[in-house]
């Protein structure tokens, strides 16, 4: 994808909330689940699950954690 904000903020700076550097963090859950060397293996097993399965399920938590963090850091706060 293109870089998040190519356009310069023009008028109405009150609305330009998307220009947060926190947004770059979102590329972690986009890139990490797509690197097979991390998860394409059997050991270690957790509760009988090979690494392939439990680690990819764990990436869901990575996704939730990252998006929640970015949302909390970029959401509208009062008057700003």
């Amino acid at each position, binding site marked *: 994808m293109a870089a998040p904000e190519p356009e310069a903020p023009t008028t109405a700076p009150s609305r330009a909330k998307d220009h947060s550097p926190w947004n770059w963090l979102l590329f972690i859950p986009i890139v990490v689940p797509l690197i097979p060397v991390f998860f394409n293996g059997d050991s270690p097993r957790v509760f009988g699950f090979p690494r392939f*399965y439990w680690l990819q399920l764990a990436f869901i938590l990575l996704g939730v954690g990252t998006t929640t963090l970015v*949302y909390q850091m970029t959401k509208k706060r009062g008057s700003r």
Partner: protein
Amino acid sequence: MWRDHLTEIIVFSVLFLLVSAMGFVAARWRAPKDMAHLDEWGLGGRSFGGWITWFLVGGDLYTAYTFVAVPALMFGAGAAGFFAVPYTIVIYPLVFLVLVRLWSVSHRHGFVTPADFVRTRFDSPVLALLIAITGIVATMPYIALQLVGIEAVLKTMGVTGDNALARHLPIIIAFAILAAYTYQSGLRAPALIAFVKDSLIYIVILVAIVYLPYKLGGWGDIFAAADAKFDASPNPNDGILLNGNNQLQYVTLALGSALALFLYPHSITGVLASKNRDVIKRNMSALPAYSLLLGLIALLGYMAIAAGVKPLPGAKEGTVDSNTVVPLLFDQQFPDWFAGVAYAAIGIGALVPAAIMSIAAANLFTRNIYKEYLKRDASPAQEANVSKITSLVVKVGAVACIVFLDPQFSIDLQLIGGVIILQTLPAVALGLYTRWFHRTGLIVGWAVGMGLGMWMLYQVASPTRKHFGGSAFPLSEFGFDTTRTIYVGIVAVAVNLAVAALVTLALRAAKVAEGVDGTTPDDYFADEGDPRVTPGAERDADSAREPVA
């Protein structure tokens, strides 16, 4: 025989009818004074808050077909079927970044479809028409697939007939009911039903993942059974782990499917129906709860292996219908009444996305074909009416796909659908960030990407068919000395982008007119309560312009 499944059929029917009644009542739920407006019928008044959006978008992205087909793929091919998990992880940050901008610009300009946006952004009715047609064509087989999900359940309950019409009668009835309440209630119907659908699915899955491993000897035994099955099979590409040949396919398929999914008109409809940016962003961090569900559902495929499930025979002699794997597993392992609940969850799970999809396709037709080319001065009430009728036509078309074509053919069409919807990525997704591309460049890129994608899909063979056998394109066809495969859609969209960029450079050098951007940078950050750009003035300005390529 169906008599052996009487309890299941009764539970299924009762729940199904209950939900249908809800669909009709939904017209009055959170209803405005005036339903005769496309914003109301097709986008639920753009008023949905956090919870409704969660269920609506979730119900939209995780369909009956997913619940049936992903475990079926795991059952047949192993690890390769697990791509659905990274796919649904990757999609949410993408939506978080990209679709909030679409929400903002749509909120300001009153856009209902992605083609509306493209029309104004690139000042090109032709490009908008291509986007609209691509959306409708890609959505139709997707709706038909929902029927494949219901059909797998009905087949397992023994509800089958001797001829084509008798076999499909239950589905025709189910779809007639669906069509009637979608006509009446619009997007409010699937939004309300989604609550029931997801509650049922969560209950069934939670019970399944606790109870089935206990019955089958634990997760270690389940994986061991799957491993043993794939070791014994002659196919070199199955197994509980990926091998060197299909890793590239796995990640490109996950990424390509994620990019395709959020370009599908129906996902965009779900996002546009929410009331503000905050609702969307909050949802993107909460929706992955469904991914966890999907991962666990996928593993039902291995449980079916461990339980020794044998899929029912397919439509043709000597084939098996692997979509029946999960319904059969429930039938064998659960008491009848609970299997009935599980079947109802799958059946209702088909109705929610089918309704949203038909609404999205109808909106595309109304806004970008009817209003653009047939009746320029259509009033909002006329627009709503055309959309309602089109949604009926779309559903009849989907039913016809199932009744008259081999269901396998619908599955192939869906495969093609993902590849073709991806070709709208440069105009819709990148268009939200940059207007660098020339409108004619985007059109040429679209055409080349589409042509290449179709050619590649045509080349893919599978054990049962010579063409359109899957989405894994062997790189050796491009002359590389390798047995690796790659997802067709990613290659096609990359070529599409490259061509669009080259043509843009050429047209810019030749100083070909680029049209006027109807949006301002500020539009992409507008939020709830922002005043609309007056549509009247914009429409007048539009018709005054010269027709463009």
